[in-house]
């Protein structure tokens, strides 16, 4: 009884200490999220005196559903996320496996690898822009030096999307590698040892034992990457402006343009809210599949 009271008192004190932080979280995260969802469902009028909301309407979403540009942005963002996250996960895992084996210089290698990750995306995008530039770019100079035609990488829809993906993979693969490496280091050695004693080869040990055990670490890394890739904004903003045409226009860039260039706050909020909904569904589905598989392994 006495212990229970003490616990409750500690808990109450805990809430008191946590409340300022909770208030801040409420003000900067929960309120804006709810506000933008409410906005996406209202008739919005912008005036110099603020944003006025009235009524409940599905008109903002109906505008999206009927706009080919929106569906293109959805397709592009989903395809971009799927491709870049897949490549990053595979590459990151391979790099982590190599790093784990590395005896000397692992610290140095990790520091070096983290360089791209620490660069601000706008800055690295400008650097990639210099590489890709069709007139004085590095890639252009290399192909011309080998007698090829000048390359206008950002000038065609497919090559622009690939170029953006490469810049993204370059920057975020180290993140996946570090997350996976952390998982690898935590793996119990005895299981691997036991498998080896039973005569399993390195390949079998990796696929049957280490990779399944790595799933939680992989799941976290992939989740983070999906969330970030869905918010893709700075790379197209700097590199392509969504071009050629609107071929590399991501959902975030579209939302920004609708909100801040066109002052269409209703449809803009609908773009934002629908993006959040899509990414939420994708992440939940991903987790469900992953958990199920983890469960199977445990069973």
């Amino acid at each position, binding site marked *: 009884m006495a212990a229970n009271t003490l616990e409750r008192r500690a808990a109450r004190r805990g809430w008191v200490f946590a409340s300022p932080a909770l208030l801040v979280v409420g003000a900067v995260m929960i*309120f804006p999220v709810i506000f933008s969802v409410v906005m996406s469902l209202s008739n919005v009028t912008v005036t110099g005196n*603020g944003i006025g909301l009235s009524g409940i309407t599905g008109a903002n979403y109906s505008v999206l559903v009927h706009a080919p540009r929106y569906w293109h942005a959805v397709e592009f963002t989903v395809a971009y996320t799927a491709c870049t996250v897949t490549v990053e996960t595979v590459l990151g895992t391979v790099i982590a496996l190599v790093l784990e084996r590395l005896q000397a210089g692992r610290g140095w290698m990790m520091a070096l690898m983290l360089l791209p990750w620490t660069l601000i995306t706008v800055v690295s995008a400008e650097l990639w822009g210099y590489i890709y530039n*069709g007139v*004085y770019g590095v890639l252009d100079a290399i192909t011309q030096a080998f007698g090829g035609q000048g390359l*206008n990488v950002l000038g065609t*829809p497919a090559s622009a999307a690939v170029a953006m993906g490469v810049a993204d993979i370059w920057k975020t693969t180290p993140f996946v590698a570090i997350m996976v490496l952390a998982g690898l280091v935590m793996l119990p050695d005895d299981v691997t040892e036991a498998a080896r004693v039973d005569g399993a080869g390195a390949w079998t040990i990796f696929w049957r034992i280490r990779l399944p055990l790595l799933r939680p670490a992989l799941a976290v890394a992939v989740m983070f990457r999906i969330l970030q890739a869905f918010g893709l904004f700075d790379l197209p903003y700097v590199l392509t402006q969504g071009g050629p*045409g*609107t071929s590399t226009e991501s959902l975030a860039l579209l939302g920004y*343009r609708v909100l801040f*260039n066109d002052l269409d706050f209703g449809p803009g909020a609908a773009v934002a809210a629908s993006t959040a909904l899509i990414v939420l569904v994708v992440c939940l589905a991903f987790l469900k599949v992953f958990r199920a598989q983890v469960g199977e392994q445990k069973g």
Partner: protein
Amino acid sequence: MRFISPRLIPVAALATCLATATVGCSSSGSTTAAGAAQSPGGQAKGTITWYANQFGPTTTDVRKTLIAAFEKANPGITVNLEQAPSDSDTFRSSLETQIAGGSSSFDVYNGDVVWPAQFGKAGLAQPLDSYFPASYWSRFSPGLVSSLTYQGKVMAVPIFTDNAFLFYRKDLLAKAHLPVPTTWQQLQSEAATLQKDHLVKYGFAAQFDAYEGLTCDWTEFAADAGASSVNPAGTTATIDSPQAVQALDFMRGLITSGVAPSATTTFQEQQSESLFTSGQVAFLRNWTYAYADSNGSGSKVAGEVGITNLPTFAGQSGPGYSVTGGWNLYLNPHSKDIPAAVAFMTWMGGTQAQTIIAEQGGEIPTVASVLHDPTVQAANPAFPIAAKNKLNARPSFVAGYSKVSEAIYTNINAALTGSVSPQSALSAASQQIGSALSNTGL
């Protein structure tokens, strides 16, 4: 998380919205009253903030020169300069969030020439008619004030205007014994000759990236071919016409013939200008400042650069069209010191300020008498040529202009890269402009 009841959150949200609206209304009401009470040009006093992006040369800050001269002429008023983003879209976002949020942290702000309708409709700029005498507006070059008018109200004071020009390499034309081109076709064939003779790597550069600058370039080519994007009433799209196809075919032809580098479709002003100042291109379409830049110390072609009016298409009477660009002063509806802000805006449209902007800023002055002053005309070779320019405005008088412009630059850019045909790009643009004008669709 039982600390805050979830049920309270929507209530709090609603309360905040209502509070914003109420506060906003009351501040707007009081400013109008204050403005009406104060006669313009009176002895206003106070401190105001000017939210302005950099303009003129990069070596000296002409804004500071202007402020110093203004403060000397108006001892009661102090002007603080607040640095604004140089990218005009970023600047616009910052203005929107601040003004719609009720901010009075700045009183007067710089704004693009294409913003009056959008800002007027959204109430982000205070209409100026009640603060300025009607006679004030007659000093400006013809057409300027009407381009800044939304629903019969003047929204801004024009502080400098900008035109497009053709910049060319005098030395290359002399070597090849070629005249300065007056038609686009002539420009293309001369450029090809210069390239064939290995005098220069590329023939022509412009701004064909998917952004506002392409809408400018497109408007010029289209006007030269006799096409437009929107009808004069601003009610229907006119971009899907045979003349527009001709203009777009020609632009695409500049790239396919190798006269313009294929990377032109990723060029904004800066990239096209640096190609020119590094000596790699013979002809450049750019704004007024490019003359000073390309003859400046950072340029490899300094002293070899000529400037003239843009060409037109063969068979049309020259010169070609230039769109009007430029920047203006807008009044923040939440300003706490409208009389002082109005005094500053009035002065900026005066002879002294306009002469500083022309002579030290290198920008085309908006006041007609200053532009035609012989000493000002002598200060910059671009000014006499600007006086001969045939001007054409982007269709920025429609409130949905930003969407109209997006429809133009995304589709034209797609056609220029070759990913769609000119014909289908124009019909897609036409459809999107139509939905922008009727305010349906994204």
